[in-house]
């Protein structure tokens, strides 16, 4: 009875309070959609991780842990890919000016930064920032499906 979703584009939208409390709920939701869309289990893990990182950044950097603020998560699913857009309404930042994470260097500072975006780029096929200060800041996370073997 499960209809074939090929060539059908589906859109989901989740609005959720900017609290780390909700990270697990967000991952669960994303994992479920990715599973339904027949991504394999490694890809499902990667997608959930990237979305976690993007939401964590919104909570931490855009809103400084102010849970009265909102995050919008939009998911587009079609036959060959999943695109997740995580939007915050904070001050934004310049994604061109991120330092490459240097783990050895940061060890010396006993502090580490820049791991999140680095990780997003490693696990997703495309990561694109859409920064419009004063309006909205969005991270687009795209994952292409592997050619399906069964189902």
């Amino acid at each position, binding site marked *: 009875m499960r209809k074939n979703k090929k060539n059908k584009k589906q859109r989901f939208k989740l609005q959720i309070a900017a609290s780390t*409390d909700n990270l697990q709920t967000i991952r669960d939701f994303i994992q479920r959609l990715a599973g339904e869309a027949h991504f394999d289990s490694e890809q499902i893990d990667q997608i959930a991780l990237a979305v*976690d990182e993007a939401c964590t950044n919104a909570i931490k950097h855009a809103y400084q842990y102010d849970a009265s603020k909102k995050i919008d998560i939009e998911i587009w699913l079609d036959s060959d890919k999943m695109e997740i857009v995580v939007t915050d309404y904070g001050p934004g930042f310049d994604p061109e000016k991120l330092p490459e994470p240097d*783990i050895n260097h940061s060890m010396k500072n006993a*502090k580490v930064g820049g791991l999140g975006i680095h990780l997003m780029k490693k*696990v997703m096929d495309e990561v694109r920032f859409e920064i419009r200060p004063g309006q909205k800041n969005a991270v687009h996370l795209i994952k292409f499906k592997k050619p399906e073997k069964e189902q």
Partner: protein
Amino acid sequence: MKGFQVKRLDKNDVSVLYPAGFLDAHTVPQFESALSELVENGRYKIVVNFKDLDYISSAGLGVFMGFIEEVRNNGGDIKLCNLSDRVYKVFDLLGFPALFEIYNQEAEALEKF
């Protein structure tokens, strides 16, 4: 509903931490305070056994970076063991295997101190 817990077991002069569940930006303070407690008590020989950890994000990885310097400066180390494939992949993506000793079994990690 599975969250996060961390247990500690002292084996002679080595302390073993067992984080369990999901280690993300929400649960990281719990793990951080477990590590802080060790450092405050001068217990710098640390093994983290990941056998019950289901998930880790960069927030969790950051904790190791935050402590390793101080621990090593005091003649100790943080050694990792029993990482599941899922958890290992995340460590690997960020180049952690070059910075931390990672063992399959806890016994091996303990022996190396």
